[in-house]
């Protein structure tokens, strides 16, 4: 099932149904540098999908395409059947409400408390009362072990705590798709494992499609039902971790082996 190739890959979902996310011949360039090059892929609903690759290969740009923060120069991006790349205004807003995004540096709003960060999406997009929103935000924070930090400001949190708070905010509206950009970046191995465990737990609960960009191979093995490796804006290899381990491509082998120990 492993695919090692220079050409774009399009996979059907295992169940043959509509994919949670689909990229259809997406090309994106910044200036003269092509970051995504005619890239196609499908992500099955409920799956853990891991994107690997060296720095600057377009992994984060790919995530930003999925939530509509970046638009492709050509090609189309679908989330749950809606063409994100063609939407704007309220229609785009509606699709975004079904997607959670954990940024590399958490990107918490530093002018409001940690709890209000988590409550923010609920205040914006639900008709819940203040008390209920606070209660739910508290529950989300408790799920990531930060139930006592509601009133703290983001600046008072450590890097790992900020990331956990960012995860709680990303999950505030119980999204169908969760995008995670380098969850281990800047964290010590223990904290990194904690974040992985939270994501793994979330994946175990089912219902949420998790797309993770990471350099951390142990983390990728744990979270990924399917892995893709990007190289120069294209898919170099795609399959399960075991399939990528057996890849005959030198770069894939080097990548998978060099970080076996984490």
């Amino acid at each position, binding site marked *: 099932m492993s695919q090692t190739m220079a050409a774009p890959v399009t996979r059907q979902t295992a169940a043959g149904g509509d994919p949670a996310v689909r990229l259809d011949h997406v090309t994106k360039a910044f200036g003269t540098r092509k970051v995504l090059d005619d890239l196609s892929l499908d992500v099955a609903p409920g799956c853990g999908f891991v994107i690997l690759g060296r720095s600057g290969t377009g992994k984060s740009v790919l995530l*930003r395409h999925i*939530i*509509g*923060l970046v638009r492709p120069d050509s090609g189309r991006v679908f989330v749950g059947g809606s063409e994100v790349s063609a939407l704007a205004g309220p229609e*785009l*807003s*509606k699709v*975004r*409400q079904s*997607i959670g*995004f954990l*940024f*590399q*540096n958490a*990107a*918490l*709003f*530093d002018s409001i408390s940690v709890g209000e960060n988590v409550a*923010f*999406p609920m205040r*914006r*997009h639900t008709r819940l009362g203040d008390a209920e929103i606070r209660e739910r935000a508290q529950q989300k924070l408790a799920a990531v072990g930060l139930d006592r930090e509601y009133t703290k400001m983001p600046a008072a949190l450590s890097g790992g705590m900020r990331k956990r708070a960012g995860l709680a*905010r990303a999950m505030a509206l119980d999204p169908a798709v969760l995008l995670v950009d380098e969850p281990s970046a800047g964290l010590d191995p223990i904290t990194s494992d904690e974040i992985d465990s939270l994501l793994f737990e979330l994946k175990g609960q089912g219902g949420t499609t998790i797309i993770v960009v990471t350099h951390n191979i142990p983390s990728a093995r744990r979270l990924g039902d399917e892995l893709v490796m990007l190289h120069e804006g294209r898919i170099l290899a795609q399959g399960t971790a075991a399939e990528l381990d057996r890849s005959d491509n030198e770069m894939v082998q080097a990548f998978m082996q060099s970080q076996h120990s984490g």
Partner: protein
Amino acid sequence: MLERAGRLVVSLLAAAGDVSIFGFRAIRELFTPPYELRETVRQLFELGLRSAPLIAVSGMAVGVVLSMHTRASLERFGAESMIPAGLAIALVRETGPLTCGLLLSGRIGAGIGAELGAMRVTEQIDALEASAVDAFRYLVVTRVAACIIALPILTTIMNFAGMIGGFLAETTTTGMPLPLYFNRAFSIVDLTDYVPATVKTMVFGFIIATISSYLGFTTESGTEGVGRASTRAVVFSSIGIIVANVVLVRLIFFIFPKAAGG
């Protein structure tokens, strides 16, 4: 050399064009629902109310100095009784609005440039968009609205503080009582002096908020870029105010000939 100058002019014109498009979009969205009332009120507090002490203290100091200069000039002609009126006219027509605008381009302009710049480089603006919130409407339109509302109010505070400062200087020198001072001050000042000059500051508010927001919103190059955005926000807002003032004064003289002494 000529080529470099040409390139500089072209890049300045391009930037002016971008700021104009940014400003027109802000005006259009200012009158298009849904309105971000809660955030606008918060910005009014942050940008307006918190600037009041600076404006009041500066206004008083300006009033004292203006009074001393006016006395020095009018004493030569034995027209000391005209000091309160001369001070009032100078303050209300020009000194108050312009000084207030320039002071606020420093306080508010630097604040907006730095805040939005920091939000840009820490991905908080992307996080807002990812949370299905229109970042332009939430961050820019609210600040533009707050500045347009706050500037005339703060200018009125400056004018009043300036009059108090002038009175303190005058009463210290001549022992003039407060009722007589204000009676003389407002003997020749009427609404055609106050209204156009104060309404003019709404344009100053728009200029400060638009230029600063644009520079913050388009910040690049990390923390260095934030510092640059903040500095440029002050410089370009100040230049914008001074240039706009020339045009607006001409316009006021055209619409209200009485304001020109006609």
